[in-house]
């Protein structure tokens, strides 16, 4: 079935202009269709889409708390089974990077281990944007946030590397894990469609620009997210059944752009240009990641 002409995520919500999260949500729902139940972890998406008494959700939707969306979804899965209504209904979770990689990691891991038939979509804006741009384990190395501030005693912002959440989920040997970028819509649609056809736990890691936290012009959202992949910083891939050796890159840039092209339009990386050495370091890490594949070919 194709629901591309239907909107299950109504306009009029309160997301910032240029927020990428609604793009991701809208397309996931178009592909999933009406027979779908949504679970939402606490975060921007929950707040901007359900200001009582309004709701943007034209599908059954539930928000319980920050860290437990996967457990809530597990309960829905079990209830539908017990009622003999499990067949044909999608259960989809949306969580931000904090609700997924940090506080929600335990319940997510539990859901994956127990093998529930659920699609988890993480929209990764790389910080706690809902509470005002605090660093999460998913914030990239070198990024400024309000809790990884830049000053004479900390010239690089966040000193630690981004937690590889999609790889962690693939290590659970669940049937399907993929990274997606809404700037690469056909690739994203293909992966959502594929994930929804597979029984069991699926995890999709979507990069999701936040104009407020990344500090960029709201009109540049898609352009900047495109650069995340064109520079090789956010590669697009899929892993089935935890088989890392068969990891499939679904998009290979013809010529990877230098990472500073991605950093330049974003205020959160501005300070790095005072320390070009750090940019070189990051470039080296990206090159090393890609070298594994380039050598293989």
């Amino acid at each position, binding site marked *: 079935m194709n629901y591309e002409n239907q909107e299950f995520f109504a306009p009029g919500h309160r997301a910032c202009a240029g927020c990428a999260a609604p793009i991701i949500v809208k397309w996931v729902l178009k592909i999933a269709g009406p027979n779908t139940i949504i679970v939402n972890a606490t975060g921007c998406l*929950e707040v901007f889409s359900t200001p009582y008494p309004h709701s943007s959700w034209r599908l059954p939707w539930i928000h319980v708390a920050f860290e437990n969306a996967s457990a809530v979804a597990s309960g829905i899965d079990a209830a539908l089974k017990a009622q003999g209504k499990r067949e044909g209904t999608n259960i989809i979770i949306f969580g931000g990077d904090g609700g997924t990689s940090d506080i929600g990691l335990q319940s997510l891991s*539990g859901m994956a281990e127990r093998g529930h038939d659920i699609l988890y979509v993480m929209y990764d804006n790389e910080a706690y944007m809902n509470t005002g741009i605090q660093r999460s384990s998913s914030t990239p190395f070198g990024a400024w946030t309000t809790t990884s501030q830049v000053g004479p005693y900390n010239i690089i912002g966040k000193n630690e590397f981004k937690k590889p959440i999609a790889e962690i989920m693939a290590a659970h040997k669940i049937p399907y894990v993929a990274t997606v970028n809404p700037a690469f819509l056909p690739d994203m649609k293909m992966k959502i469609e594929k994930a929804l056809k597979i029984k069991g736990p699926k995890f999709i890691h979507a990069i999701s620009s936040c104009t407020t936290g990344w500090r960029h012009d709201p009109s540049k959202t898609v352009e900047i997210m495109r650069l995340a992949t064109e520079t090789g910083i956010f590669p697009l891939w899929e892993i089935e059944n935890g088989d890392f050796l068969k990891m499939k890159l679904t998009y290979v840039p013809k010529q990877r752009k230098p990472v500073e092209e991605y950093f330049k339009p974003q205020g959160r990386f501005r300070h790095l240009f005072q320390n070009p050495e750090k940019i070189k370091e990051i470039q080296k890490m990206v090159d090393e990641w890609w070298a594994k594949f380039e050598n293989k070919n």
Partner: protein
Amino acid sequence: MVMMMLKGNEATAYAAKVAKVQVIPAYPITPSTLFPEKVSELISNGEMKAEFIPVESEHSALSAAIGAAATGARTMTATASQGLALMHEVLFIASGMRLPIVMAIGNRALSAPVNIWAEQQDTIAQRDSGWLQFYAENNQEALDLSLIAFRVAEDKRVLLPAMMGMDAFVLTHTMEPVDVPDESLVEKYLGPPEQKYPTLNPSQPSTFGAFVFPEHYMEFRYSQFVAMEHSKKVIDEAFEEFKNIFGREYRKVSGFMNEDADILLISMGSMTGTAREAIRKLREKGEKVGLIKLSVFRPFPKEELVEITKNARIVAVVDRNISIGFAGAIFTELVASYNNIEKKPKILNFILGLGGRDIRVEDYIEIYNRAKEAENRGVKEIQWINVDEDAVYEVEGPL
């Protein structure tokens, strides 16, 4: 009807079975682990049809219960102590979302220091969470009150979750003969397990757990308050109907040798049997003493408690919990229940049995003697029974 030898935890697992509970998410914790074990056994050998979710924490147990109940399934879980404390956040969400989940609790002390034995602090600490609270004296009550909890929680005038407490080990791990009612009778009492309130249903999409601003939030809270007040009547009806179908009688507050008593003891949970024995002994010696048993703590049965205690000279409230900084919870609430009532008995508080310290007939006799002293002279309002005060004063300084 089948008579079985069951531990308290098993009795609540059988309650889940005969209530045709559809989803049971649970996580092991002493002393309630026998619940998920028994459920797993009953499902594995085909005696029970339910979805068991062996979750990875108590927080997830209650979260999964919320997901299941929001989908319209009759849902039950069990926990104790640290597990209940870990659920704290989610308890408020379950009641705020008006989901009639039932949870059996093995009442156990909280850390630190770590202790796995009987105390009612775990559930008392959650008294503000918007859940109904029942307390069992024995394993038959543990089963019956679990069924009654479903009946009240699922009533559309209530729609609030309920916990049913039974003391660690004294009940959870002690075998007693229990009458396990027929499923058909239970279905007559509870109705079918599929719930009728609005649920997560793709053919009627609704938003659950929205973001609510100050202009609407208070009405949601007041709704909960009103529903809890309504539950008082619904509980009485549920007790009455239970008696009609199963023949066993329950009351929120029940008296024993209390009619002409000058001094009344108040008890809740498994130690009530011990208290009854002490009352009998004292009565043999001609003492005018009686006992009041509390089976429901939320909603607090203040009208019934005042009515049954108002003619006594002294009420000795026995609390197996302590709110550090004030007093035991039953004492506090009984005193508050007498607000704006002029004629009131002298009310004293006795703390005992924390962390599983044995509660003996002698302890109740000691409580009675101390309460009797208060007839002639002033005594400490809050007294700890069977505790080595000197050892504590040596470290903390005297009180």
